[in-house]
């Protein structure tokens, strides 16, 4: 069991009673805890928040970025990116501007 803090963007804080972050206990589905595992755990305790991040097929939404520390998981292994104890997962809306 790995405890991970998930940073919640301002636009979604109403879904977690105004909190800037939530802590979830994640179980590893393999030999390491991954971003996907953290989101699976998030889906149990805060399902409305989790489905803003992933669709019902489990894919991250196109205009949502997930960062482990300072690294965008798109540049790493996506949902398979490992996340260690004490690390933070940040949910960040893409700029998607013009």
């Amino acid at each position: 069991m790995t405890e991970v803090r998930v940073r919640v963007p301002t636009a979604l804080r109403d879904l977690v009673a105004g909190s800037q972050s939530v802590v979830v206990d994640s179980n590893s589905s393999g030999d390491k805890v991954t971003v996907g595992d953290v989101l699976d755990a998030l889906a149990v305790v805060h399902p409305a928040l989790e489905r803003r991040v992933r669709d019902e097929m489990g894919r991250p939404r196109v205009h949502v970025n997930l960062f482990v520390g300072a690294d965008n998981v798109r540049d790493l292994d996506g949902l398979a990116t490992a996340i260690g104890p004490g690390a933070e997962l940040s949910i960040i809306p893409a700029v998607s501007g013009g």
Partner: protein
Amino acid sequence: MDTLVLVGTTKGLFALRSDDGREQFELVGPSFAGEEVYATCIDTRGAGARLFTGSVSNHWGPVLRRSDDLGASWTEDERAALTFPAGSDTSLARIWQLTPGPADQPEVVYAGVEPAALFRSHDGGATFELVRGLWDHPHRPKWQPGGGGLCLHTVLVHPDDPERLLIAISAAGVYLSDDGGESWTASNTGILVPFEPGSPELEFGQCVHKVARDAGDPESLYLQHHGGIYRSDNGGRAWTAMTGIAGMDFGFPVVAHPTRPGTAYLLPLESDEYRCTPDGHCTVWRTVDGGTSWEPLTKGLPQRDAHVTVLRDAFTTDGLDPAGLYFGTRTGEVYGSIDDGDSWQLLADHLPPVVSVRAAPVG
């Protein structure tokens, strides 16, 4: 009695409310600022009105919400009321239609979505199930999207037989079920396809924009197609072109008068390339003889430099008699009439682009 008009825009939900017999409306909103609200519903079958919205955020995806206090507060089901089931290999893109079920089954609610699928709730919208009969239809892999996407935008429940359903999809056309959604038959006989060589009659593939049911005869239907206007006298089993509005084949909405037989409204647009009201005239057209003839309604509507677009679900009635009629434009105006369309007034302007309007007496 108050009258509520829900105005869904590309930047959130607004509401117009009147407590003085529809003489004046007060605008409130936006709720869900930044979300595209393509589906709204005012369900008046229960003890109090229940509101639904289907919206989508560019970032955070689609959301279904309900309100039992006329929009003062909204709830979103914790477990997502409306999602594609595991194994469907599909995710919900947008909710296009939220329709109350039969009058005597107040817990039944239908939802039409993109990619094209029909969902049904048996618990007042708390949870929805995919209607498998349509999802498994052999035509589905061949359906092609219209300009707005592959959307199921129309759900009509027969008032005398809740097992009889009509749905319409852009650009697949009309499908009928006589067994509560277990099985479906494409029903587009008579509808031409002008955008294909030779304007063939196809079993399916028609770009039907909207269908409305006549108030007096439930077998009579009006249909706005991408390239023509049609009516049916047999519950949608066959369609006949209506030719009463010369040169105005294109448009999105069609609305039937809520109580008067043979009466319906169109808001034609100029060509499928321009898609604005023709010649700068914003005109609603009305038939009172089942579509044989049409009259232009212009009183109170802009007749100079008015190049506006009204989308398929942005024109509605409040169900009263005389009918309140309301439409919103992509340039952010909302017009209303409380005399069956004889005269109109501007109810709101400078809103974001309007994509859905629904109205009903409440309270």
